[in-house]
């Protein structure tokens, strides 16, 4: 038996950390969040409304005013 494969985490520069395989995330208050997707995107910027799961809130936003603005 060789060395066990290390868990690979891909840190993206603009968005979440990507973790392969099912994961369980434990928050500071002890809450556990489980994800069994093939890949889980973990929020890295703290802007997600579903923290600790990424909801693409890191995206750059451009404001468009209405016709009356």
């Amino acid at each position: 038996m060789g060395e066990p494969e290390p868990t690979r985490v891909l840190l993206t520069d603009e968005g979440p950390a990507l973790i392969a395989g099912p994961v369980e995330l434990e928050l500071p208050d002890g809450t556990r969040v489980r994800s069994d997707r093939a890949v889980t995107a973990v929020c890295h910027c703290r802007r997600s409304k579903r923290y600790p799961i990424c909801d693409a809130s890191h995206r750059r936003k451009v404001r468009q005013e209405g016709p009356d603005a």
Partner: protein
Amino acid sequence: MTRTLEPSFLHRTAAPDLPTLRGPLSEAVVEALRGGPLRSVDAAGADPYGEDLQLALHCCYELHYRGFAGVDAEREWDPELLGLRRELERVFLAALRADVEPGDDVTAEVDALLVEPIGPGVRGVSHHLQREGTLDQLREYVAHRSIYHLKEADPQAWAIPRLSGAAKAGLVTVEHDEYGSGRPERMHALLFAEMMAELGLSDAYCAYVDHVPGETLAEVNLMSLCGLHRSLRGASVGQFAMVELTSSPGSERLVRGMRRLGCGPASIRFYDEHVEADAVHEQVVRRGVLAPLLEAEPELAADVVFGIRASLFLGERMGERLLGCWDRGESSLRLPLDADRP
């Protein structure tokens, strides 16, 4: 979470009935599928985005998915029908090539999709449904979307054997998730069907084809066109990327709209699942599909951009149809939803 499976959807394989005709092209296809001779028709003179051509194309493509009740499955490879399909595709594709500005900078295209417009000036169907749309309008929207979502991920599956190496593996990762990662009760098509049932809509495959306009059929026809032609595999990936990159914020708006309208758990679940799933898919599509595809086949860049822009173009046409009808206080469907529930 324990849920009662809906065997009625998961185990249902019955093919839909042939649709109601919208002109000479759809009449020629439907009559041929009913067993008559294929009449000669002039596809070249038809409106490329019109009701008739789009319905005719839809019927040709459905032979590759579920077929039609009473139609021999082998008609999928009827050379005469395939010949007519090719003429219809040429008209549709030529119009898209003319209406969509060409480009080959995939990175710039993707970066533009990742900027999220916000504020009162943004006009879009999901924005409208989040802020002020009615329950009837939401039900109409779901009926439009059912043409695709009841076969969600199927048109893009055609691209799998046309890719190789890392791009193939990346595409399959996303497709696997769309099909529930091995758990049929999590298939996105099933989640959509459960939402339809909760909203009092029929969850039968293609139940609303007669209801939806050419704008709706055209979006799905583009997916089938690009999926079925190996020469358009770059466009198929581009179309797939566009959906996966833009769906997460739009799904969040629909979740909020549904909560505002007091929709039930199955309705909210479908779009709620897509907020998180598509935040992941965005990353996998960019890093795991687009990057290796363009490294292996850089000559496909222009087709990827075409796929992105063509699907945006058709998506905007469909959005305008819906919002335009709703602005006028009309239904966006060709038939009322409840008058003759399928």
